[in-house]
């Protein structure tokens, strides 16, 4: 028997496999393909205080071993999530993590305050790293003082688990990680997408309506693993590893680098069953390697 449970600051996940915000909708989109009760958690689509229409089409460009996106946080607002979506998805026996965003600190506070009262939601992901919005978003996550300020502000109004989603588009991600740890974050998730760009050589125009966008997929995996390992060596709070995880072996690599849990992102677009296949694959890996507690793998790289 393998114990797949992991623990993020006291919050138990039945296994380390969760799905990344923006790649899994609200989970319902995958109901025909998988048993959502098998997941450790679902980080739902990014939410803001009010309805957002997002960026203009085209929002996506396929790139070598990955893709760029510039969706721009299209969502119907936090109240719609709490009143209409959450009642439909709370039946699943998995942790639901809203991913919250704002243009100003007051937006984050207002969203977090509303979520604090929602029974059944035990934690949120504080997104200070969205590269696709003009105001706020990544701006909070690329400087230490602003990352600390927004984390502190949300900490004051939110009593449950806060996981801060970090941007890789910084000189030293460990400085930001240490900053948000000091400001009261219970965990960090990394990495959000890398800022990228693609041009159509025939039309000489940018492919994305926003010109730049966020790169995801296996193309970013080595960068993500390096950053997880650096942050693991810099902070004590748990890490949720993200970046191009396509299979169970990738997930193991992230755990060995220091991740307590992982998020499956772009791979959900290629195989809508991949998240659950990774849960099964982790169990197989542990069985084959005579590991009884998967948490023993966390930071277990032999150097």
């Amino acid at each position, binding site marked *: 028997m393998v114990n797949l449970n992991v623990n993020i600051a006291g919050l138990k996940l039945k296994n380390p496999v969760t799905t990344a915000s923006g790649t899994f*909708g609200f989970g319902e989109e995958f109901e025909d393909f998988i048993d959502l009760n098998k997941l450790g958690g679902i980080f739902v689509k990014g939410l803001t205080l009010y309805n957002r229409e997002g960026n203009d089409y085209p929002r*996506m460009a396929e790139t070598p*071993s*990955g893709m760029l996106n510039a969706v721009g946080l299209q969502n119907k607002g936090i109240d719609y999530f709490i009143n209409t979506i959450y009642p439909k998805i709370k039946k699943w026996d998995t942790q639901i993590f809203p991913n919250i965003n704002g243009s100003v600190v007051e937006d984050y506070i207002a969203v977090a305050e509303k979520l604090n009262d929602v029974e059944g939601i035990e934690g949120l992901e504080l997104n200070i790293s969205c590269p696709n919005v003009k105001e706020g978003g990544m701006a909070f996550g690329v400087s230490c003082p602003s990352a600390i300020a927004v984390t502190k502000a949300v900490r004051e109004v939110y009593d449950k688990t806060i996981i801060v989603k970090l941007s890789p588009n910084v000189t030293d991600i460990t400085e930001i990680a240490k900053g948000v740890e000091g400001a009261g974050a219970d965990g960090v998730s990394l990495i959000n997408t890398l800022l990228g760009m693609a041009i159509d050589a025939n039309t000489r125009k940018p492919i994305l309506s926003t010109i730049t966008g966020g790169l995801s997929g296996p193309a970013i995996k080595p960068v993500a693993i390096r950053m997880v390992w650096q942050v693991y060596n810099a902070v004590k709070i748990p890490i949720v590893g993200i970046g191009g995880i396509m299979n169970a072996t990738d997930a193991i690599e992230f755990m060995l680098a220091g991740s307590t849990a992982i998020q499956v992102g772009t791979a959900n*677009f290629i195989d809508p069953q991949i998240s659950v296949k990774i849960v099964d694959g982790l169990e197989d890996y542990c069985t084959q390697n005579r590991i009884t507690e998967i948490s023993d793998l966390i930071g277990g790289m032999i150097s």
Partner: protein
Amino acid sequence: MKRIQDFNVISYTWLNDDNYIITLGSETDIECVEPGNFAEIKVPNSPDVFLRRPISILDVDHQNNTIKFYIKAIGKGTRQLGNLDINSSLNIVYPLGNSFSVIKKKRALIVGGGSGIAPFILLASKLKDENTEVTFLIGGRTSGDVFLTDEFGRYGEVLVTTEDGSLGEKGMVTQHSVFSRTMDFDLIYTCGPDPMMKAVANIASEKGIDCEASLENMMACGIGACLCCVTPTIRGNECVCTEGPVFNSKDLVW
């Protein structure tokens, strides 16, 4: 219900150098498919092609468990899909998206251009089942771009336009004389390049006829999770993969 399923390549029918019909078979039952539905096809043996390719479903045969796609090879993915070994495996997610309205005992005009003709075999067969009279108007640059007219002919009158006049009337589809006739159609269905669909929708609007257009935006997931394929509508940005691909043209802001 949406499903992920492995198929085998049974055969190819090449219509010309770039256009083909691929027939896939499965050992197990296939899902019910409505006209306008599409599939997300995983492109095998092609490391350059990362995402699935959304392709409109041409036809299904529930007795033999086969599904057909009409594909125009325009990029790496669609070219590679035309280059697989017979009996090799192909993984598809389907049926995706909404479908065309199937009107009963009425008259319908179906306007297609380029690869936009793909959903119309299935649509015409359903319309025929409902005793709706169908007229097809198919446009292309030259006679070599106009396909499937024999198949369409089994369901109704087929009108053709080509830009060079090599087949049917000369000009764009919207210049066809059918539009100067008394337009007693109850619904116009259209699929093809955006400028063509917009022009068809404008005519429909002028004549007070409802028009349904099937859009073909770039997609990643195909199931409404990534929000990459949106189109602006009177209700805001909507996903072509889930709220579409078929939209009433009055709802589109294009």
